[in-house]
Structure formats: structure tokens, C-alpha cells
């Protein structure tokens, strides 16, 4: 309902998102060559999440989707976090 009232995003916005994705890709590759230990993993994952959000919010149009669709979009991630999180509480706390 709300979508039909909203104006279509301008063409330039799509290229802006693409440019941001390319910059983030360059950053993640470049940062991997800087020896900062575990921070490499943290930066790579942070950039991956940002790229995924850009694709989901703009290219997959979650920005102007109904709450129902947004709910369906996050529900898979939420369940995945629960499953992985609970499994890791076992794996990470085993002695020896």
C-alpha cells in the first residue's frame, strides 16, 4: 500500500549503492594485507554485513517494503543466529 504511494528511487541512487559496494570490496581486500591479527576477521565480517545490508535494503527494496515482508526477511537470520549461537555455547565452553 505504502509502496505504491512512494516515488521510485532515482536512477543515480542505484549507481551510488553499486559504487559503495565496490568501495567496500576494495576496503575489505586492502585491509586483509594489513597485519592486525583478529581485527582482520572483524573488519572483513563488518564489511560483509554492510554490503549485505546495502543489497537487501536498496536492491531488494526492504527500504520500502511492508512490515510483513521485513519480518519474513529477518526471520531466517534470527533463527540462524539462535541455532549457531546455542551450538557455540557448547563448542566454545568444552574444556581441554
Amino acid at each position, binding site marked *: 500500500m505504502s509502496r505504491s504511494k512512494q516515488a521510485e528511487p532515482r536512477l543515480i541512487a542505484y549507481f551510488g549503492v553499486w559504487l559503495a559496494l565496490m568501495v567496500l570490496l576494495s576496503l575489505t581486500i586492502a585491509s586483509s594485507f594489513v597485519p592486525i591479527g583478529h581485527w582482520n576477521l572483524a573488519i572483513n565480517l563488518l564489511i560483509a554485513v554492510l554490503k549485505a545490508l546495502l543489497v537487501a535494503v536498496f536492491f531488494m527494496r526492504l527500504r520500502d517494503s511492508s512490515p510483513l515482508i521485513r519480518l519474513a526477511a529477518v526471520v531466517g537470520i534470527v*533463527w540462524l543466529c539462535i541455532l549457531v549461537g546455542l551450538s557455540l555455547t557448547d563448542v566454545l565452553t568444552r574444556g581441554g
Partner: protein
Amino acid sequence: MSARSSAVGRRSRTRTAELGMWIFLASEVLFFGVLFFAYIMGRLHHPQAFAAASRHTDLLLGSINTAVLLTSSLTMALAARAARGKRWRPCAGLLAATFVLGLIFLTLKLLEYHEDFDQHLVPGVLFSLVSADRSGLEQFFLTYFVTTGAHAVHLLVGLGVVAVLTVRVIRARAQLPTEMVEVGGLYWHLVDIIWIFLFPLLYLVSRT
């Protein structure tokens, strides 16, 4: 009056189709989630081996492929935008561009697999990397082949979807429901997002 009610019907059908695709995508997230969990377990138990093995992946091909796939998401999003505006000619062109970019990705991936086979990076008797933790190295490449393989199969399905959409847009035009391009695009973008996570986890574990 009848025109208005059919417009309302079409709008709610659009949302239903999109909602259905999102629910399917959630199940896909869980499917790939299992593979990512296998990766987490391997990396937790064999941190050094995963770092060493990752250096044997082809960073150049992997980076080019990431850029190709991100660009294909742009052309797909633009195709859906063109479909919403009933601009069918650019829509067909953008879908064709998406198809070509997807094809380039798969071709480069096959080239890379060929390279991996040549260097005996496939786990098994002929596995060529040596270290104290050989099973860790093999586990990395097992995860590499299974995750990128599952991703490639999804991309192949995506190529089929985009090909059918392109032909139907060229042939049917006005009769084609715009949500078809939209919903097909959602699937394409998800395959892109899976790769967005695979790329740093497989190619960038340790490059310093």
C-alpha cells in the same frame, strides 16, 4: 470500478508473491547457514591450517568474481525498476546483461576450479599441501568446494530464471506481470549476498 478492484487485486498479489519468495529465501539462509556453521567449526579447531590453506585460493579471480556478481545485482535491480515503470525494452537489455555477468562469474569459477584441481587442492589421496595439520588443510578445501559448489548450483538456477524472464519480457511485454522480474530478482540478490560472505571467509583468512 472493476478496473480499480483489479488494480487492488494485482497489488496484493504482488505482495503475496514477494512475501512467498522472502519466506523461501529465509529457508535458503538456513540451508547455507549449516554450511557456514561447518566452516566455523573447522576454523575454530584448525585456525592455523585454515589460514595457511586460504593462501592457496586465487585472490585475483575471487575478487574479480565478487565485483562481477555485485555488478550483476545492480543490473538486476535496474531491470526490476524498468519493469515497474513498464519500460520493457531496457528491462530485457538489463536482464540479458545480468545473465551475461552471471555467466562470466560461472566461467571464472570453473577456471578457478580447474586451477585448484591442477594444484591438487581437492581433499583426498592426491592432496598436495603438507603440514603438521594436514586434515585441517583438507577440511578447509572440503568446505571451500562444498560452499562454492552449492553457491554455483544456486547461480545456475538463477541463470535459468533470468533467461526465462528475458525471453518472456521480449515476447510477452505488456501481458507480463511486473512482479515476476521483481521476485526473480530477489532470488538473484540472495545468491549475491551468500557470495558476499563466502568471499572474505574463503579468500581473505590470512593474507598478511
